[in-house]
């Protein structure tokens, strides 16, 4: 009794995707505790629903969509969202144009980019992370966010523009910084 037809399959889903979904949620919420809760809820929902999933479904994209939805609900009507906007403003770099060219290390550039991403409006932030960090197709990003692939693309575009603007007043690591970064 109590046989679960495809629990083995679900176990494999967890093994394959849990860590990545968790990372995604850390990036979106900025908090491990929230990522813990939301990732758990993501997989519990998936567990309840996965039996009805078509055999050829893209499970990874589906999990991202569930996680994204939970995030949106999580932030909805919460002050956190406004705080995120406030953080966005704070994250816009002050004009310290005096920074000498080439001095900004990739690590710093990355930190600055992260700050900008953290400060993006929720949809832009999620679109950006889904596409640029987790490399989902725009169609899947759109499905997660409940918008078209084109709108998803526009969100990512806006996010990139903001990051680019954030670097405007700062000297950036050169294009080759990535390659010359010493390995640690």
């Amino acid at each position: 009794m109590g046989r679960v037809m495809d629990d083995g399959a679900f176990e494999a889903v967890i093994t394959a995707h849990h860590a990545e979904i968790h990372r995604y949620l850390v990036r979106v919420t900025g908090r491990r505790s929230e990522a813990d809760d939301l990732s758990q809820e993501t997989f519990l929902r998936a567990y309840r629903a996965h039996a009805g999933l078509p055999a050829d479904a893209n499970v990874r994209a589906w999990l991202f969509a569930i996680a994204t939805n939970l995030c949106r609900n999580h932030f909805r009507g919460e002050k956190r969202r406004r705080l995120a906007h406030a953080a966005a403003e704070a994250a816009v770099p002050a004009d310290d144009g005096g920074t000498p060219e080439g001095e900004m290390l990739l690590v710093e550039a990355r930190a600055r980019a992260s700050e900008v991403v953290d400060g993006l409006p929720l949809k832009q932030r999620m679109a950006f992370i889904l596409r640029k960090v987790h490399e989902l197709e725009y169609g899947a990003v759109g499905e997660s966010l409940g918008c078209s692939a084109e709108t998803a693309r526009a969100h990512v575009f806006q996010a990139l523009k903001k990051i680019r603007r954030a670097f405007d007043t700062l000297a950036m690591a050169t294009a080759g910084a990535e390659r010359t970064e010493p390995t640690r």
Partner: protein
Amino acid sequence: MSPAPPACREIEADLVATASGEASPAAARRVEGHVSACDRCQRELDRYREVDGIVQSLRRAPLRTSDPTLARAELESKLADLRTRLLAFRRFTSPLGPILIGRTELGVSLVEYLEPGEAVDAARLARLSGGRAVEDTGELESVYGELLEYLDGRRARLDWPLDLRTVRGSFQHRVLEATARLPYGAVASYAGIARDIGAPRAVRAVAQALRHNPLPIAIPCHRVIGSSGALTGYAGDKVGLKQRLLAVEGVRTASGRRHLAIDRRRLYHLFRGEHAYCLPSCGSLLTKPMADVTLFASRDRAEAVGLEPCGECRPDLHPLVPMTGAD
């Protein structure tokens, strides 16, 4: 930076796409053509390529607080619990009409009367069990077989393991437990159950709790009746089923002026706290409130639970005349 010329603004999206390798070949060619003649946009393209490099490194950068080990362990433990809540259900035909039976790994958790043609709502069952609901693949067969024997009068006990986790609240638990103790072939009143669980004034609440009995038949709420002897209700408006279930156990009901009722004068009495069963005419038993008596359909039923005949009224020597025919 001064505002960009319209042509530059127009190409910007393609430019960003090109920088991150997402542009279509046509868009990439447009950008190539444009930047070859526009220094400003060439610089933009370079800038966006740098941004793309940073973004790519972002992807590879470790997160400080991302260790998912704990979260995964918690998830696994939640799932283990959910698996024990997996509800396997099946719709069966029965002499009482279509009936839905569900069980989890822990035991039978659901018995429901369905309307003819009523579809089973698996989503509702999943919510009810707090887990998932799937069509049974044959494991309920033996449960169903026993149920048929029971409804046929060939079996007096349903010794199913029960899963009562869908029951919310200790009050309903207590009511169901007290009801489950009512022997085959016996009836008691809602007021009697209320008294059993130490809440003598909660008669209506007892009736409500039994109305939401998740396991009718298995938890024999059909053995609980009104203090007047009226069957009152059962599974919504299915009081006829209550009459039939009681008839299987030998408890006859008669159509009174307005409703189905049992007749105390034709049933053996067990007074609260006693260990001997009596004729209804013994002492002043018939004037005692229903809350204080349990009624038995026959001497066999009373003796089957270890009761002895009363030494004064001697039901063993003067048994009640069995009722004949259908009422």
